[in-house]
């Protein structure tokens, strides 16, 4: 079957007087790894819970694989969710947790055993089927939660902040692991995250949410290089936002600006003074005060070994960028 796996049509969800989701239209294609990105309270988790069926929209509708999900309870949806807290059953062992959903379906015992074993090997937890969740590390628990949702072979897997509870080192490895699984299984993943780096590096497409609405949706590259608004430009990565005319802005990424001691030959050149240097190892981030306008952020890779940063605080520098280096914004 063709057509989008998820179609969200004008969905509104209110909690009291608050519009948690304030009119969202969205299509997610089959096999996509789609990320919903936004700060806390932007409505991304509510949207995920609407997809799972834990909440019902006040208006609008949600179609999953062409089926209208209005009034369909969670246990009848072809969707599984990985909870932020993992929500593993503490009174069941790992195998029992993974088998839970299959038992509810009435799958035969030998098949359950085979599919649980398959799921365990998929998330590389062979031999841990007899452990209780309390006997596992955080990373292992996350894998059990993933296996428990995947074993049901859902049309759509929802992941609520899947990496938030892991420490940084583990998070980076798990990111690639999730993408590998998603590609290997050919499933559609919808990930909710507040971490823009996570969304950018994993998603094939992402939507930035603010105040219950989708502000912009597109590929990570689109959103980074062609933000549609100052909010998106500012939310994703770093940006210098310069007001070039009333109601007209230029969003300029720090790494698109060249830093030099002499006046550069680029279309735009501005003189300034280095106010701050943040050394990050691979690159240095400079804050430069220019004669007219805000502090400019400029990033430069530290390609040469030996010197710390190319410029120091107080150095007089030139900033240069090309005509097409920035994105013109109207909102």
């Amino acid at each position: 079957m063709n057509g989008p796996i998820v179609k969200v049509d004008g969905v509104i969800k209110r909690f009291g007087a608050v519009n948690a989701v304030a009119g969202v239209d969205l299509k997610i294609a089959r096999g996509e790894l789609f990320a919903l990105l936004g700060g806390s309270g932007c409505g991304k988790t509510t949207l995920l819970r609407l997809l799972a069926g834990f909440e019902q929209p006040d208006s609008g509708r949600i179609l999953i694989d062409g089926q209208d999900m209005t009034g369909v309870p969670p246990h009848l949806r072809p969707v599984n969710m990985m909870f932020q807290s993992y929500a593993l059953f503490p009174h069941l062992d790992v195998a029992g947790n993974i088998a839970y959903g299959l038992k509810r379906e009435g799958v035969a015992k030998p098949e359950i055993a085979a599919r649980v074993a398959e799921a365990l090997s998929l998330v590389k937890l062979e031999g841990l089927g007899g452990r209780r969740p309390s006997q596992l590390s955080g990373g292992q628990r996350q894998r059990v939660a993933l296996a428990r949702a995947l074993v049901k072979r859902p049309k759509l897997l929802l992941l609520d902040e899947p990496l938030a509870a892991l420490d940084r080192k583990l998070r980076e490895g798990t990111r690639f692991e999730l993408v590998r699984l998603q590609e290997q299984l050919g499933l559609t993943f919808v990930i909710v995250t507040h971490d823009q780096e996570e969304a950018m590096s994993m998603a094939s497409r992402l939507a930035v949410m603010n105040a219950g609405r989708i502000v912009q949706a597109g590929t990570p590259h689109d959103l980074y290089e062609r933000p549609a608004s100052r909010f998106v430009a500012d939310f994703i990565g770093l940006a210098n936002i310069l007001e070039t005319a009333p109601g007209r802005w230029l969003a300029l990424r720090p790494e698109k600006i060249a830093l030099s001691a002499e006046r550069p030959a680029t279309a735009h050149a501005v003189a300034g003074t280095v106010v701050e240097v943040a050394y990050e190892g691979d690159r240095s981030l400079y804050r430069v005060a220019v004669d007219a306008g805000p502090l400019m952020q400029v990033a430069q890779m530290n390609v040469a070994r030996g010197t710390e940063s190319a410029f120091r605080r107080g150095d007089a520098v030139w900033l240069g960028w090309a005509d097409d280096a920035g994105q013109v914004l109207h909102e």
Partner: protein
Amino acid sequence: MRLVIALPYLWLGIFFLLPLALVLVLAFGTNAPDSVPPVELGVDLASFRLLFTDDLYLAAWLSSLRIAALSTLVTLLLGYPMAYAIARADPRRRPLLLMLVVLPFWTSFLIRVYAWMGLLSENGILNQFLRWSGMAADPYTILGTEWAIYLGIVYAYLPFMVLPLYASLEKLDWSLLEAASDLGARPLPAFLTVALPLSLPGIVAGCLLVFIPAVGEFVIPDLLGGTRTLMIGKVLWDEFFTNSDWPLASAVAICLLVVLVGPIMLFQRQQQRSLERRS
């Protein structure tokens, strides 16, 4: 410091162990109606022998266990939905709901049981209402039957069921129920496979807190159950005060203790385990 630790032990020694030893000694004595006190000390097993040979005592035991077990079951069936509802209520309303559960404790237990007599007697409020509303012409005889005992026990012990159940349900992570429903469980199976097993410690604690005192209950069967109902607590009272047979009454008390040691130890182990799990 040593005094602080020693004082409670001293207290228990004087007011619990000593009387218990006294009862044990009396149980092996011989009934002597003409002396004061009416007992001759010695090692006489006659009282125990009587307990195990006279059908009256066996019948009283069995009926006590049956009444206590059935009341515990009814209390559980009533208390579980209550505790569940309180645990899922708005956190701001929970203290009020819990206070309502323990509110009856503000009135003396004895007075509350007397109030039930007024409610249930043939000219009591319940029968007057039934007659006035035309639902029944003849008054129902409830007071003096086993029904009244069940009513009394369930009423009096309900808070002891609700509170431990609430304590274990309140700790339950509700996202587990969402996870169950997400994995395809309908509401009832989700409850039976997730919430119920996870609240088992509360169920065990609540049942034992009701069952153990209900077996030896005296006031409720005496005031509400009338003369026909047999419960071991009442038998004990009758042997001591009506028949003045101290050794036999003491033997009944010792047996009651022995029978309840099992469930009490179960309760202790359960508490111990849930403490360990928390740490």
